[in-house]
């Protein structure tokens, strides 16, 4: 440990820490553009200057390592004046088009101008004209007038993805970010450049001109698109009180977690999420009666389904209930399924229908493309794919959770097979051809719309919360399951106490301590 003095206050920090990090640990923010914790300090923006006693010049906090007894001023008049000077240089050539810039509201240059600038411009010359709309990737647009040349983007592509699509070209005032032979940034992680860029120089076509950051609410969640379980922020518009289901997700951003994803997420998750959350959603409760399709109330449908189950139960034939599950389900939902169907009703025919595994990229993206296969395994489920021959002859009632069965099952062979099963209940957040074959279609919540936990491939149990409901008449599967348990009067005292997901989680941990590892 080294003892240093920050603005007069003594602080103890680990040896080898930089002044910047020491200040950060002490709650002192130092302005910076080029520094980013994931990269080696580059020292080019010159904004993080501090005064160190005994040094003739101001020093860079981002790259200067602490020395025992060092006395640092992070806010002295000289320091503030120097930072103001650096900002003045940047602002002189900056287009100042904040009113039409997506970054406005969360732009570092705006923030620092508030903190250090607030001066009038004395720049009387012509500003450089530069390209304002350069396509540098499938969804990325570069505005060279806004760029402050921090080279975070270049270093991300050099140090993290190692794909080197962008570089620094020309010199002096003409220096600019560009691609080689105009090859686009295409590496599966390109969206991170937008988050990394401290100003509005790199923007995302998915987000461009759609909304303003200050209209958005930030929700914490877990990416559902693979078993890495990257920590994310869901930035959504909470919607309008009188317009049910008007909440809308605008973008997904990484939420730093060094044990899982660091500060990054992949494009598959980032761009896939919004599509999944918004497209092909199942929104209405349906009861198919031959030719006639009718919309029903939840109560009526649950009573009806309950009666079918109860009928089997009275005949001691609940083993003729079969399940096709998905690992889009949370740990708590899988646990309820286990308690109700496996333990309570003795169901043995349990299959899993998940999206097909995809290629792994050696960085974050895993081949399992759902977030909770590990959770299902730890729960004691055997994750076997549906076997139609084993399924059809033994089934009177089939519960299907999730839409994936249609995608995996044998070139549509599932269709005639399902027709032989008397009662098919589909609980799903997404619609596809399965819905037309099912007798009951129950619209369920998508992952970011429910509370619970997911277990990533490394066995990390992580929380998700109900945010940003895109649809109106949907229910989380846990609620549907508990309602069903109540309908068929299965151990009222046990299930009756489980209304909150926390209570389910508590029971789950009691039975399987593995799931206790909540971070």
């Amino acid at each position, binding site marked *: 440990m080294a003892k240093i003095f920050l603005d007069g206050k003594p602080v103890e920090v680990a040896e080898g820490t930089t002044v910047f990090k020491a200040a950060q640990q002490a709650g002192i923010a130092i302005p910076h553009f080029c520094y980013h914790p994931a990269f080696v*300090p*580059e*020292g*080019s*923006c*010159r*904004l993080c*200057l501090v005064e160190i006693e005994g040094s*003739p*010049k*101001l020093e*860079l906090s981002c*790259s200067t390592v602490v020395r025992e007894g060092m006395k640092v001023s992070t806010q002295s008049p000289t320091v503030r004046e*120097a930072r103001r*000077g*650096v900002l*003045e*240089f*940047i602002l*002189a*050539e900056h287009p100042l088009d904040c009113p039409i810039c997506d970054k406005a509201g969360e732009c570092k240059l705006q923030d620092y101008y508030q903190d250090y600038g607030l001066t009038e411009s*004395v*720049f*009387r*010359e*012509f500003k450089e004209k530069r390209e304002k709309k350069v396509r540098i990737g499938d969804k990325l647009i570069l505005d060279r007038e806004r760029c*402050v*040349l921090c080279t975070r983007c270049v270093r991300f592509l050099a140090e993290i993805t190692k794909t080197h699509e962008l*570089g*620094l070209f*020309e*010199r*002096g*005032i*003409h*220096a600019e970010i560009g691609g080689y032979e105009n090859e686009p940034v295409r590496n599966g992680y390109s969206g991170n450049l937008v988050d990394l860029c401290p100003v509005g120089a790199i923007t995302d076509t998915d987000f461009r001109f759609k909304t303003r950051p200050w209209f958005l609410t930030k929700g914490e969640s877990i990416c559902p698109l693979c078993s890495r379980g990257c920590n994310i922020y869901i930035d959504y518009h909470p919607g309008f009180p009188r317009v049910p289901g008007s909440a809308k997700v605008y973008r997904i951003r990484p939420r730093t977690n060094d044990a899982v994803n660091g500060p990054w997420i992949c494009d598959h998750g980032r761009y896939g999420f919004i599509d999944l959350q918004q497209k092909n959603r199942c929104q209405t409760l349906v009861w198919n009666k031959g030719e006639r399709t009718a919309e029903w109330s939840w109560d009526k449908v649950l009573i009806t389904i309950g009666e079918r189950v109860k009928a089997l139960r009275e005949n001691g034939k609940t083993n003729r209930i079969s399940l096709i599950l998905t690992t889009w389900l949370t740990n708590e939902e899988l646990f309820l399924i286990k308690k109700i169907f496996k333990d309570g009703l003795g169901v043995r025919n349990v299959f899993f229908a998940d999206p097909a595994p995809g290629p792994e990229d050696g960085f974050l993206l895993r081949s399992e493309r759902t977030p909770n296969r590990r959770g299902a395994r730890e729960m004691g489920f055997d994750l076997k794919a549906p076997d139609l021959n084993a399924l059809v002859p033994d089934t009177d009632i089939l519960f299907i959770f999730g839409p994936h069965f249609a995608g995996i099952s044998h070139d549509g062979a599932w269709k005639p097979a399902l027709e032989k099963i008397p009662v098919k209940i589909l609980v799903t957040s997404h619609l596809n051809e399965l819905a037309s074959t099912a007798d009951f279609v129950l619209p369920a919540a998508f992952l970011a719309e429910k509370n619970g936990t997911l277990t990533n491939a490394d066995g990390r149990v992580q929380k998700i919360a109900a945010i940003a409901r895109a649809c109106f008449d949907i229910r989380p599967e846990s609620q549907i399951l508990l309602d069903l348990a109540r309908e068929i009067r299965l151990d009222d005292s046990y299930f009756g106490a489980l209304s909150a997901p926390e209570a389910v989680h508590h029971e789950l941990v009691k039975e399987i301590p593995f799931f206790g590892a909540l971070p």
Partner: protein
Amino acid sequence: METKVLTKDFGLDHLYRIGVYLEQGGYRAVKKALTEWKPEQVIDEVKKASLRGRGGAGFPAGLKWSFVPQKTDKPKYLCVNADEGEPGTFKDRSIMAHDPHLLIEGIIIAAYAVGIHTAYIYIRGEYELIARRLEGAIGEAYAKGYLGKNILGIGFDLELYVHRGAGAYICGEETGLLESLEGKRGNPRLKPPFPASVGLFQSPTVINNVETLANVPFIILNGAGWFLERGSPKDGGTRIFGVSGAVNKPGIYELPVGTSLREIIFTHAGGLKPGRALKAVIPGGMSCPIFKADEVDVKMDCDCVAAAGSMLGSGAVIVIDDRTPILDVLSKVAKFYAHESCGQCTPCRLGTSWIHKIVKRMAAGKGRADDVETLVRLSTNIKGRTLCPLGDAAALPVLAIARKFKAELENTMKGNA
């Protein structure tokens, strides 16, 4: 006392051929150092001689060599800075063109002292003929066994390569040079780490100017005492001053370190043309703050020039007479640094360009009353705050001109208005 040391034989025909060079006693210093001295002894002698860098910063060469770790599992490199980019400087080219073997000898001794087996001469791209001449000389030295494997049979190896630059001033800055030599864009590196520990290809590296190394053989042959006698106590030897501008005899003058600036201009370079008066002098290359006519009684060694508020730099003396408007000088300075900034760090990239834009406007007759004040403020905001010394090199001369010639600049603008 004969003052010429390095340039003594420059008049000889074909000195650049190893035959002629050997007839003059060439490679005796290499023989002496490699066969009679231990590497540490070489470093000590160079330290004692107070040989200061001739490239610009005036850093003691022996001390620089001693910073390189003795024990390391990495290769060590020597990079010879022959980029000679500083406006006004034209001395290294004369050494390399006339006496390339002198440089090679200096390189071999420096490499031996530090334990280096690979050296590069990074030469500015425009010096094409000189680069060829160097390569010819290197070929000869290999043929005679002064380069290559087992030099002089003492088991010391040295490979020497010439690498031509592509025309950027910033590649003369030592870490910009390293990047360029590695095949990258010549952006200076953040220091620390210093090249002595992490340099070329991440390995310990010595970077020295051509003239610095060309002095080394004489120190070996004649001893530190002899060398010090020729210069100042803390800055030994002679320097090749390159005098240009409004003098009767522009050219290179090898004179003892510590010769007065007045003497250089009026005695050696023949003074100014009839009817003209001295207005200002830039003492060490364009990056050094300007002296007014009444400031030229300064001894030209690193410390004295620094004490007078400027730098000895590369010893390039640029003489300005009373017919030259100071705004012209300022325009040249502003344009050069704005053009040569690598663009990596904020104050230099945007500050040099802003200054250039103001000066251009002033030169176009559209100056404003507060322009000089703004120039002072902007250069103050660049000074000491950039990643590499080019920022200072750009700011200091502007600052000096704006302060020392404020009245003239303001008058020019009034005349315009």
